């Protein structure tokens, strides 16, 4: 009996992987249950609930015809690699060196599932241990887990840790935390964990620290800020950490790992929990996923850290070895006491991250971060020279910033695609994620010129004219210049103006 894929069959045909039931298979199955035909097999199902007629599917294709058809369909897509991209908002177009692919595509790593007899898989455990070490060094924290699914799920776990540790019922987040991460947190917190509450941003797109202070109380488990925040603004993390600790709450920092080549690591400003999206570390954009959630905590919170944790030890002969440690916290061991449902990790993405960080090295990381910051600053400077383009994100930025435009940002982005550019993320995409971003009393949502007045509190203006742009090391000066020219062209032609 044929069992494997593509095995030759008694009738001489080859069963392809994805067409499991040949006519001979069907015949064999029917004979085994003693039924004459498919009609007889389904006789118990009343005819009126059964589909009548032929399915509207095209005729079958040969392998070469199918390959051509798939190529045609793929050609209809417009991948970032074929355009000059300024997209960001959590997923970034950094160069992924060949060494990453070479290592993560080795069968030993690529095909391995999370080790259920972990100590037999020393290579996988060592790769995770080295990933954890890199995350600790990067964030300045004491303990990292083996990774989570993405920044959003890592943030939700951080909230649960804080709730368990402080036995308090509220988590106060800045609206500068990515709206999608906040949405995942809200979803996962329903019925479990502290209740999330958002604090708005001030003019310039950093968190309104006065409103943050007002939101605190003795029922707050954690304060969460993102650095840089979703508009690219730099937050005063040290001040927020002090406010949190003064209120007896934990401080959770959501950070961009590559920004830590330039910015102060969270361990130095008193973060209790650090989470973030690790896609930028050697993982391609993958149409938005899979991502890599990272999570690191102080040693005080070690026993509340969800997921897997690899430790280093010595074996009976004194040789260096690796084990899963503190497993007693895992939900598969003490299910009724579990505070988290995660019992796996994104090992392959984490491996890509540690290979990438090793490739980048101690000098490479700050150099790369500085390159991004310089190019972002250059693009911002050039864009702000254009009539009607104004700064939305105030102050210095790392690799991402927002501007307000004299036209709807989505219209500008659309007009730039045929010119070969992905202009960035129109923030109208996240409309509704920012409190009070409807019209302020007595004012139209968008001024009649289609522009929001400069210096206005973000909460008081709509986001239609706000564009978020990211600049990685892959964007050359020539690309940036060509992009600015294309933006100027679209703005002066009037083609992106409001209908």
């Amino acid at each position, binding site marked *: 009996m044929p069992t494997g894929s593509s095995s030759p069959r008694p009738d001489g045909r080859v069963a392809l992987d994805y067409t499991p039931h040949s006519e001979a298979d069907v015949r064999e199955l029917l004979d085994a249950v003693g039924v004459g035909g498919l009609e007889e097999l389904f006789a118990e199902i009343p005819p009126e609930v059964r589909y009548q007629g032929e399915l509207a599917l095209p005729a079958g294709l040969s392998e070469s015809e199918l390959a051509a058809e798939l190529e045609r369909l793929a050609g209809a897509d417009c991948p970032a690699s074929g355009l000059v991209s300024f997209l960001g908002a959590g997923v970034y177009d950094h160069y992924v060196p060949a060494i990453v692919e070479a290592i993560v595509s080795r069968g030993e790593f690529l095909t391995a599932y999370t080790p259920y007899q972990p100590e037999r898989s020393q290579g996988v455990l060592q790769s995770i241990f080295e990933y954890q070490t890199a995350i600790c060094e990067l964030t300045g924290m004491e303990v990292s887990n083996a990774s989570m699914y993405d920044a959003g799920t890592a943030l939700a776990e951080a909230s649960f840790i804080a709730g368990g540790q402080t*036995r308090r019922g509220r988590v106060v987040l800045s609206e500068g935390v990515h709206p999608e991460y906040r949405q995942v947190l809200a979803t996962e917190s329903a019925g479990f964990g502290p209740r999330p509450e958002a604090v708005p941003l001030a003019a310039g797109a950093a968190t309104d620290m006065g409103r943050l202070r007002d939101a605190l109380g003795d029922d707050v488990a954690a304060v969460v800020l993102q650095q840089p925040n979703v508009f690219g603004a730099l937050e005063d993390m040290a001040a927020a950490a002090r406010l949190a600790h003064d209120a007896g709450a934990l401080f959770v920092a959501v950070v961009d790992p590559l920004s830590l080549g330039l910015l102060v690591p969270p361990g130095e400003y008193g973060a209790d929990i650090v989470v973030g999206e690790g896609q930028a570390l050697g993982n391609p954009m993958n149409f938005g996923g899979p991502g890599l959630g990272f999570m690191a905590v102080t040693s005080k919170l070690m*026993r509340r850290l969800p997921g897997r944790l690899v430790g280093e030890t010595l074996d009976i002969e004194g040789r260096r070895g690796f084990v899963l440690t503190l497993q*007693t916290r895992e939900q598969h061991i003490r299910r009724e*006491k579990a505070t988290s449902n995660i019992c796996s990790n994104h090992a392959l993405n984490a491996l890509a991250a540690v290979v990438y960080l090793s490739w980048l090295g101690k000098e490479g990381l700050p150099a790369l971060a500085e390159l991004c910051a310089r190019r972002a600053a250059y693009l911002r400077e050039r864009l702000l020279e254009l009539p009607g383009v104004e700064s939305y994100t105030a102050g210095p930025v790392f690799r991402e910033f927002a501007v307000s435009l004299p036209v709807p940002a989505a219209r500008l982005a659309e007009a730039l695609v045929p010119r070969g550019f992905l202009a960035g993320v129109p923030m109208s995409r996240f409309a509704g994620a920012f409190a009070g971003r409807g019209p302020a009393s007595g004012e139209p949502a968008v001024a009649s010129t289609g522009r929001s007045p400069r210096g206005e509190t973000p909460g008081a203006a709509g986001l239609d004219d706000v564009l978020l742009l990211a600049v990685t090391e892959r964007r050359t000066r020539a690309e940036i210049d060509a992009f600015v020219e294309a933006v100027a062209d679209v703005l002066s032609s009037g083609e992106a103006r409001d209908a």
Partner: protein
Amino acid sequence: MADESYPQDLKYYKEHDWVRLEGDEAVFGITWFAQDALGEIVYADLPEVGATVTAGTPYGELESVKAVSDVFAPLSGEITDVNAVLEDEPQLVNEDCYGEGWILRVRLSDTGELDELMDADAYRKFLAEA
């Protein structure tokens, strides 16, 4: 680690806890047998002062190199003190389980529950039969 012992002045509970009665309060800990079974204790997750405990239900956890185990309340009441030293030195539960390794002090709410406890001889017998 100390030698096996079950002091005569203590009461014992079937989940291998001891109780020292002091007026309307009682001190809880785990017995020599319990700490020996757990092995080297590396972490104690304990409740806060002011919380209530209920006889027969877990009030905290002791983590050893082998496992994490629930610690059961032998009597009901309100916690008046927690041995905070265990946070940094959980091994005291191994080294001196009836002394510095005490866990909670509780103001008792139901002295009727005392009848459920064993004296040292009964507990030794209970261990021998288990």
